[in-house]
Structures are given as structure tokens and as C-alpha cells.
């Protein structure tokens, strides 16, 4: 009996989902894409009672949270490892991933939802997002100061790259971020765009993306 493909519940524009799509693509995992809006889809709660996206269903395991999913994929699908063995470089990857997923994106999410709900003006919302992206990007530029490798922490794509690209992409495409202020990140973004796994994960290339 064939093993069922893992299912990724996600949405085209979700930055957190974008990370997991990249990880799945890099590891060559064939997955089923299911688009869901947790706010409006009543059946989603049965699949994932905490209603967050992305969520990965792999056999009888259901995992939400992009970092938890990434670390699960790292164990289960060892092709293209995302974490180096060297403890310092591993820690740097986790630190950069956490700057994105704890210190930038949640504040961005808060401001986007605030605007959507009408609690704040579009100026306020954009100001908040840009403030936190700028703070995070400036810190990451310092952490990567002197980086001459092809990708953030070496010549192989690693976890930090998986988390960085969706944040850079959102910054450029949604929040008017001027990447000339962050030369290392700008260079990395260009490098990521050469990689098929990253191309295939882009929001605009997802089945639920609006047609142009």
C-alpha cells in the first residue's frame, strides 16, 4: 500500500507557510497542497484544533508551527540537511530563524490583522511592520557581517535561508522595504531566486494565488 503524501494546510500569502514550502521542496518531499483560511473554514478546527497555519499532516502526526514543522522534517527527511553539525553555525541558523519567526513576523502579523480589523490606520500598520522588519534586518546584517559564503551561513542553503527568504519577499512585495539598506540580505535574496525550490515556493506560484 502506498504511503499517503504529507498534506500541508497553508495559504499562498502566509509567510510562515512559505518557509515550510521551501523546506519541503529542498528536501524533495512530494506533498499535497491544501489551501485553508483558518478564520473562515469551519472544518479546519477538526484537523488542527489550535487553528494555526501552516499545519503538516504526515500519517497520524499533525504539527503546526513553521519551526516545529521544519525541525520535524529535518529528522524525518534527512536529504538536504538544514542544520549544520557545527554547534556555532547551528546556533546561528536557529538565532536567525528565531529573529524572523519571533521578532519580526509576529509583529507584522499583528499589524496586518489590526489594519484588517480596522483597529489601526494603514499608516500605523505599515509603520509598525517597517519598524520591526528594519530592526530585525539590521541585526541580521550585523550577525552576518563579513559573510562571503554563497548563502547566509555557508555554501549550502540552511535553516536561516529558509526563514529569511519569505521575510525578505514579504518586505519587498508587501511592505515597501528598501533592500539597498541591507546589502547582505539583498544579495542573499538574489541568490535564493536562482534556486528552483525557492521559486516553486513563491506565493504567486501557489494554486490558491489570485491569477494576475
Amino acid at each position, binding site marked *: 500500500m502506498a504511503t499517503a503524501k504529507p498534506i500541508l494546510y497553508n495559504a499562498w500569502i502566509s509567510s510562515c507557510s512559505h518557509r515550510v514550502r521551501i523546506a519541503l521542496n529542498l528536501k524533495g518531499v512530494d506533498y499535497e497542497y491544501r489551501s485553508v483560511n483558518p478564520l473562515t473554514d469551519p472544518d479546519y478546527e477538526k484537523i488542527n484544533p489550535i487553528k494555526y497555519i501552516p499545519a503538516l499532516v504526515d500519517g497520524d502526526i499533525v504539527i503546526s508551527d513553521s519551526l516545529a514543522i521544519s525541525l520535524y522534517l529535518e529528522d524525518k527527511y534527512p536529504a538536504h540537511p538544514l542544520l549544520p553539525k557545527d554547534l556555532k553555525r547551528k546556533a546561528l541558523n536557529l538565532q536567525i530563524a528565531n529573529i524572523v519567526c*519571533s521578532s519580526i513576523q509576529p509583529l507584522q502579523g499583528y499589524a496586518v490583522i489590526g489594519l484588517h480589523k480596522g483597529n489601526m490606520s494603514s499608516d500605523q500598520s505599515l509603520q509598525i511592520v517597517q519598524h520591526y522588519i528594519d530592526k530585525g534586518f539590521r541585526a541580521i546584517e550585523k550577525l552576518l557581517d563579513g559573510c562571503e559564503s554563497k548563502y547566509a551561513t555557508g555554501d549550502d542553503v540552511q535553516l536561516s535561508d529558509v526563514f529569511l527568504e519569505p521575510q525578505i519577499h514579504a518586505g519587498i512585495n508587501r511592505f515597501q522595504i528598501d533592500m539597498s539598506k541591507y546589502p547582505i540580505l539583498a544579495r542573499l535574496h538574489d541568490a535564493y531566486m536562482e534556486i528552483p525550490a525557492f521559486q516553486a515556493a513563491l506565493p504567486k506560484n501557489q494554486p490558491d494565488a489570485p491569477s494576475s
Partner: protein
Amino acid sequence: MAEMEGTAKAGRPRLYSYWRSSCSHRARIALNFKGVEYEYKAVNLLKGEQSDPEFLKLNPMKFVPALVDDDAVIGDSYAIALYLEDKYPSPPLLPQDPKKKALNHQIANIVSSGIQPLHNLTVLRFIDQKIGAGESVSWTQQQIERGFTAIENLIQLKGCAGKYATGDEVQLADVFLAPQIFAAIERTKIDMSNYPALARLHDEYMGHPAFQAALPDRQLDAPSST
């Protein structure tokens, strides 16, 4: 009282921490749990010491904790916890079982991405300044309640709780939960009757030596009681 500058004892990691910082609290628990002796270096956030040039070199995000261990410099509590897990494997914070391991990461991430960053000091100041003075109070409560509801549901749903969040041993989820629950009770006065599993876990943590030694008011830089 801040610790005096001095040469770290050979082989001992140094932890930059603020007594009341929830993220520093996680790192202190992990170090204590693994029996790692460390040097405590206080960074007074209220005095802005996180912006000192020396500290900026250690963590350009200006956050505590930061761990310096030989030539490793790590400025993030999640990265610190997983570094300690690799370097000091016993006792372990992550189970081998993939489901339980994933559950630990999920719970840790709900705290570290879904709750704490939305009510840390810099965010609250920003909200009070830009959105409205005093907005931060109800905001903090909302974030904690939303996150606690998610974790309570997750724990009940997965049914792996034992003495601790995911079994009978302290694991990564507990390292992240304990400081968040402590702060919610002590500082935000959250009504824990809505979260019976978390309330029970809090009592367990308060009885565990590694967790007790990590409590904010036991730290070198905690104000002396008046």
C-alpha cells in the same frame, strides 16, 4: 546588584540575563536543569544596558539572554536551549519520539513566537507610544489568553501530559512554559482557572529545584525585598 566585571572561570559559560526577563528565565532553567555551572552577567534593561556597545556586539537585537561559551556567542533563548541540548546531552530536553518532540517544539514556539514577543518591553513601549497610552495592559492580557487557550487545548488534545507538559520528565516545552506562566500569574494577574493544565504545571515547576533557582527574584540583579 549587578555582578562585577571579571574573567570568567575557565570552562564556565557566561549568561547575560535580566532578572525579570522571561527569555532569560528560560535559559536559566535549561542551564540549571542540565547541571551547567555558569557565570551570571546582569544586563539592566530598564537602564538601557542592552544598548551598550559591548552588549550590542554580543546581540545586535539588543535582547537578553545571550550565552557566551568559549567562542560561541548565542543571542536567542531557543538557539541557546538547543545548543545546550547538543553540548550537554544529559539530562535531555527533547524526547526521541517524533510526535512528542514535535509537540515540545510546538508548545515552545507558541510561547516564543505567539505570546512573549507580542508583550515584551520594547513592544509594550512602542504600543503605548504609537497606538495609545495604557493600550499595552489589555493587549498583554489578550495575547496571553489567546496563547494559553491554544496550549491548553493542545495539551488536552494530545493527551501526553504527565507530571510535566509532555510526560513525566521535564522537557523543552516546560522550559518555555514555566517563565510564561510565572509572568502571567505574577505580573499580568491572569485568571488561571481557565487553564487547569497550565495551573497544575505551574505548581509542579514551583516545586522543582532547577526551576526554583531560575526564578526572577532569586537572581543576582533582583532588587532586594524591602
